[in-house]
């Protein structure tokens, strides 16, 4: 296992234990996107490493001089929270409070509770790309050369607002923006193909004027190669869209190959069975 893979294994354990701990939340998409978030936060993104109170990373809302990440499909908050905690924004023990009363780790990410690392509320689907564009424009106005990353779901692509944003970005040279679509082919009511087929998403983004790339989002080598390439492609007049093929429930055999684990928590026996498939690399919280 490479270092990134070993972090991803621990993040997957965190996701399962968080969702199990409150018997609610969304393991499927979280497990599928674990590799991307780990690669972004532990290798790709330029993050201010200055430590503040309690030895945690000091978080600044404006993020000037830092790469920023926006999670538009807010229901996969478990992977976001785990990666933020493992990266050092807050204590990993706080992951145990997920979705419980008086927690900073709300069901969907919020700024309302001031959790370090979160810059916008998400949960109502379809809104994140617009925010990411605004944030990227703000960087341009500031003369700030750092980048903005955004992740969306593939079911989420059915929202009209996504396409308002997709049309805007290339027309306005938002070339400091990288949008990932989690193409796992699943959503709540079944496969995206059956519910409301996205057809050739990459071709659509391309037709709107984006530079489109494809990657296996559960292959860390491929991901890191792609991310290196992206660094060379930004700033060339076009926003970048990555069609990221993943498996919902990646890493846990009985959660894969269906939409069933989109938003269901494992029971005790299922948790044990799932954890037995994922190495505890950094210590459970």
């Amino acid at each position: 296992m490479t270092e990134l893979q070993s972090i991803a294994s621990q993040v997957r354990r965190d996701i399962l234990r968080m969702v199990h701990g409150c018997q609610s939340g969304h393991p499927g998409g979280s497990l599928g996107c674990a590799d991307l978030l780990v690669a972004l936060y532990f290798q790709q993104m330029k993050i201010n490493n200055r430590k503040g109170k309690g030895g945690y990373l000091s978080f600044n809302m404006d993020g000037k001089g830092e790469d920023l990440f926006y999670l538009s499909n807010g229901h996969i908050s478990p992977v976001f929270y785990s990666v933020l905690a493992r990266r050092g924004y807050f204590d990993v023990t706080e992951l145990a409070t997920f979705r419980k009363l008086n927690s900073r780790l709300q069901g969907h990410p919020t700024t309302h509770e001031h959790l370090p690392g979160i810059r916008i509320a998400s949960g109502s689907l379809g809104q994140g790309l617009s925010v990411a564009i605004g944030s990227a424009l703000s960087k341009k106005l500031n003369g700030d050369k750092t980048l903005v990353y955004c992740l969306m779901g593939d079911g989420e692509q059915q929202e009209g607002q996504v396409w308002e944003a997709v049309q805007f970005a290339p027309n306005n040279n938002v070339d400091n923006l990288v949008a990932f679509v989690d193409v796992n082919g699943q959503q709540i009511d079944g496969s995206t193909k059956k519910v409301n087929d996205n057809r050739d998403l990459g071709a659509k983004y391309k037709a709107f004027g984006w530079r489109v790339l494809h990657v296996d989002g559960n292959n860390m080598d491929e991901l890191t190669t792609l991310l290196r390439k992206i660094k060379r492609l930004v700033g060339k007049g076009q926003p970048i869209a990555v069609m990221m093929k993943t498996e919902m429930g990646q890493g846990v055999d009985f959660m894969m190959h269906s939409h069933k684990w989109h938003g269901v928590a494992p029971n005790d026996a299922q948790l044990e069975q799932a954890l037995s498939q994922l190495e505890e690399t950094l210590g459970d919280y």
Partner: protein
Amino acid sequence: MKKYTFTEKKDTRSGFGAGMQVLGQTNPNVVALCADLVGSLKLDAFIKENPERFIQCGISEANMIGMAAGLTIGGKIPFATTFANFATSRVYDQVRQSVAYSHKNVKICASHAGLTLGEDGATHQVLEDLGMMKMLPGMTVINPCDYNQTKAATIAIAEYDGPVYLRFGRPVIPVFTDADQKFEIGKAWMVNEGTDVSIFATGHLVWEAIQAGEMLEAEGINAEIINIHTIKPLDEKAILASVKKTGCAVSAEEHQVAGGLGDSIAQVLIQKHLAPLEYVGVKDTFGESGTPAQLMEKYGLSAKAIVEAAKRAIARKK
């Protein structure tokens, strides 16, 4: 205090699903639409029995509302369904222009309203929907109190010609109203006659109001409890008759106090019969993750909160 008992607990959204199944069998014009939340809206039976009259919209609520408006042209009775937040705030202009202003016979049916949606948290816990929807001219707004009343209301709104917002929820709560009730839009239901204070409750708060009535009775206070299941058109007559008798009122709703049922009642009282009114509702704040019971307690929507509000209202009587 009239005794209310229950033998089972069910979610009001299942009452909606049961009503839809009846409509599927009895009204060939009824069409159901949903935006990737079929299981949450309990539409499985309707879809199984009437697959050709179900439209899966995918995650595109604005498109769903527009299509529902279009379906009415040609005589269909569309029931557009999703979570309450996505059925209202997400699509307010589509509802305003294509449904309300155009006066189309669309039934907007919304589950997971309010704090009792629980762990998903504030992004999903809409507490402004009753206010938004009641402000739209011509919109009927209904918030039933249990499984049976939701089922009856679902069936009743298909008979009514005009736009309707029907709101229900996720938690399992006591089933205490009659199984074979006839639902009358706009007609308040006298839950318990009393003399000391009028408690006007809607939705999940009706059962809490009954609990509160029993707690007040133990302290010698005789509460009148009225279920306002239809927030618009409001049963002014029932409200005025009750407050003229008791001299003070409490409103109870799983909603912001600004713009909800309480404010509708306040308008009536201010204009026609001045009397003290105390609000039980969410006080200008967003919700958060937690179990439904924890949230109802923390945000002051429990039976205990209604008891305290009743005492405050009584103390303000001259």
